[in-house]
């Protein structure tokens, strides 16, 4: 496509890509990642795949949207989209976000202040990734097709985007080029939230057309509601796995580790992201060690979906969000626990603690919900466990999960722990509520279809990888082992993929893990190093 990109181009040039990614436009990384050999390669889809699915945005396919079966089917889908667009502005269907969405529709002044705040745009320079590009397409569609007299007023309002198959198929992919980290909203002088617009577009596609990424929907919320966990683990399997972890931890640390299950009336019901149990067993293991050592009255629960704190509904579907949150809290109420404590999972924090807060009515309000971070801080500084910080005497930096830090304001507890237990702790720049997303946010970390991983790691994660390298710039070589602390499952998944993609363990000695692992590593009673300097 030649000439500067216009908003209305989203609906033009059917069958062509709106843009093509250019790896040479990406922000540079420090050595040894600065050579052209290190640039991500955006693979082309295989011809048979390209025939099966839409690939008309940027050459990347996250969603595997099939072509419509016929012109009639195509028109039906376009009409459904238009209907969904209208429903976004009805109180009965979208009371959940009607006010912030209406504000975002009406009052953006187009100052583009948000652009430089977006890690995806900043890393790539691609015009379609500007936070306002997606929003302005949506705004013009609403102005033209939802508002009364919209088509008549279109020449004045600039509502020049045509509603057609090309527009909606591109817009669907484009809704999944934003991590919903809301850094753009944070810097907006008016308070407009482009992340919310991407979120609402995803909702429209899911709740009206039934379109959502397979990893988040069929293999995510649907599987979780059917089986109990988006990992596919049922109650029996999860207990088996945790028992296995307990045995492993006991053997590794010399401390008897047992995880209590379904303990009625416990003070703390700990809910992990079940992905931890599968992919990072040392994390639930470390929690068990710390909670037992501190004498906390705690339990895991196996009822319903209670052993998996994942709630991907947060990213794309209010109905699924509500279903899962209600099940989580109902099971906690039935078990008569005092509180739910979120494990190291950012979106779980945000889903249960704040976003779903106002769908939990009546008796469900009796169950308190708390982050693990203040609890861990309370334990670390309680004097109940003896620590030797010299055991953590290696460079450590902290990644701030957007859903815990920017969105919930939990900033300092984890830092106070790291400043106490990790003598070589250093911040990234920027950090805290100004952090950059890891690039795996909003479900991307579990999405790897087609050629999406290259984009997720090479574009969305590039700013974070640069931040990590910059944080360790004083000791860049592999001879010094370094640790990225990421107290969030999805962030860990993304950081793992980035470190593997660039070979950062071999080239720079960088590995990653959670916070509780560092706490256990510093415990005097744990004789052998708990942190393993390997890619896991």
């Amino acid at each position, binding site marked *: 496509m030649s000439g500067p990109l216009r908003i209305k181009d989203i609906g033009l040039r059917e069958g062509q890509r709106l843009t093509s990614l250019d790896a040479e436009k990406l922000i540079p990384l420090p050595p040894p990642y600065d050579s052209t050999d290190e640039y991500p390669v955006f693979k082309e889809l295989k011809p048979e795949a390209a025939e099966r699915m839409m690939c008309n945005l940027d050459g990347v396919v996250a969603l595997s949207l099939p072509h419509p079966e016929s012109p009639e089917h195509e028109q039906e889908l376009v009409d459904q989209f238009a209907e969904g667009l209208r429903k976004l502005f009805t109180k009965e269907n979208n009371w959940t976000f009607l006010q912030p969405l209406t504000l975002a529709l009406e009052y953006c002044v187009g100052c583009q202040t948000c652009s430089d705040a977006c890690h995806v745009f900043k890393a790539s320079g691609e015009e379609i990734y500007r936070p306002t590009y997606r929003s302005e397409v949506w705004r013009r569609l609403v102005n033209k097709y939802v508002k009364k007299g919209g088509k008549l007023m279109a020449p004045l309002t600039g509502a020049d985007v045509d509603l057609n198959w090309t527009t909606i198929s591109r817009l669907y992919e484009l809704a999944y080029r934003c991590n919903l980290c809301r850094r753009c909203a944070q810097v907006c002088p008016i308070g407009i939230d482009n992340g919310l617009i991407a979120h609402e577009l995803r909702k429209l596609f899911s709740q009206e057309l039934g379109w959502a990424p397979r990893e988040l929907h069929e293999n995510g919320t649907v599987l979780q*509601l059917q089986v109990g966990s988006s990992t596919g683990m049922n109650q029996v399997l999860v207990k088996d796995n945790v028992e296995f972890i307990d045995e492993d931890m006991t053997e590794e640390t010399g401390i008897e580790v047992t995880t209590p299950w379904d303990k009625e009336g416990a003070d703390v019901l700990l809910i992990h992201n079940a992905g931890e149990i599968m992919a990072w067993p040392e994390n639930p293991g470390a929690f068990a060690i710390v909670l037992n050592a501190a004498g906390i009255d705690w339990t895991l629960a196996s009822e319903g979906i209670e052993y998996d704190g994942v709630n991907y509904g947060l990213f794309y579907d209010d109905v699924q969000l509500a279903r899962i949150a209600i099940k989580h809290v109902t099971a906690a109420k039935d078990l008569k626990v005092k509180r739910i404590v979120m494990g190291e999972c950012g979106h779980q924090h945000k889903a249960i603690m704040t976003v779903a807060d106002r769908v939990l009515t009546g008796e469900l309000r009796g169950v*308190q919900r708390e982050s693990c971070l203040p609890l861990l801080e309370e334990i670390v500084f309680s004097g109940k466990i003896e620590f030797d910080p010299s055991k953590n005497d290696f460079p450590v930096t902290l990644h701030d999960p957007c859903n815990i830090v920017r969105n919930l*304001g939990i900033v300092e507890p984890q830092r106070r722990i790291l400043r106490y237990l990790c003598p070589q702790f250093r911040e990234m720049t920027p950090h805290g509520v100004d952090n950059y997303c890891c690039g795996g946010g909003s479900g991307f970390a579990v999405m790897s279809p087609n050629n999406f991983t290259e984009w997720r790691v090479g574009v969305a994660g590039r700013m974070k990888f640069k931040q990590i390298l910059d944080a360790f710039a004083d000791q860049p070589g592999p001879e010094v082992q370094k640790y990225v602390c990421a107290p969030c499952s999805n962030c860990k998944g993304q950081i793992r993929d980035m470190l593997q993609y660039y070979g950062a363990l071999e080239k720079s000695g960088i590995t990653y893990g959670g916070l509780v692992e560092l706490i256990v590593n510093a415990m005097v009673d744990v004789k052998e190093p708990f942190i393993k300097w390997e890619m896991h």
Partner: protein
Amino acid sequence: MSGPILLAVCYGLLAVFVAAFVVRSVRIARLPVHLRWELSPIPKEKTRGRYGGSYLEEYEWWKKPREESLVSELVYMLKEILFLKALWEHNRRLWWFSYPFHVGLYLLVLAAAVFVLGSGAAAVGLTGPEWGILRVWLPVVAGAGYVLGALGALGLLVSRIADPKLRVVSTPVAMFNLALLLAVFVTGAVAVSTVTGVVGHALTFGKALLTAGPMPAMPGILAWHAALTLVFLAYLPFSQMMHFVAKYFTYHEVRWDDEPMKQGGSMEREVQQLLDQPVTWAAPHVGADGGKNWVDIATQEVPR
């Protein structure tokens, strides 16, 4: 146009301004309670607000008193309103135009208040020397407002045309808004600097509006300025320029709304009514049939 008709037109435009302003503001305020969507930093958080922390940092936060500071919130707001802090920090290039533009508007709001006061004084016959100060300060404040506003509006307009990243999202309406304001500022500046006895003319006009008295004849440029200002006011509530009202809601009702719902409280009652509404989303997994409400949808067996 005869005097009474002119007066009626002026009243009509002012009535549109007031009515539309109130209706649009109330409409935003009356939108239903939404799910929590707060965003740090929340400045009302005492001490923690400085780094963006919230009450959720507290162990057993529900047992602790909320420590909030109205002063911190006001300081944050004043920095934003008076200095456009967010734009200064994140979009310095645009700030150089946007800041004089907004300061110009603030000065003109101040000048308008003085104008109404002075017109009222003239209407009740207060013409003593103490009111003479108005005649000195009104043109100074208004003149400064017009000049700063014009410079800012011109800069913003040129930026929107010259800067490709601004041009791409600039609609004809957005350009018109700036052009209209530029016309108001320029006519005002020319009137203040060229019309002899401009304050007297203005106050006589204001007195006529307040008393429904005969409309005075005004010098051409001042008449144009008055007409453009009234048209602008009537148009304002229908435009994006209402963002100064919207900003209250985006900050206080969305970004800074971190209040947990209280069991049995008014918010819970409102939420229960909202949950009682029928859902019509069409995707199969939602399972809506037009009759089921949110509670049914969220708690019944999930359709496969």
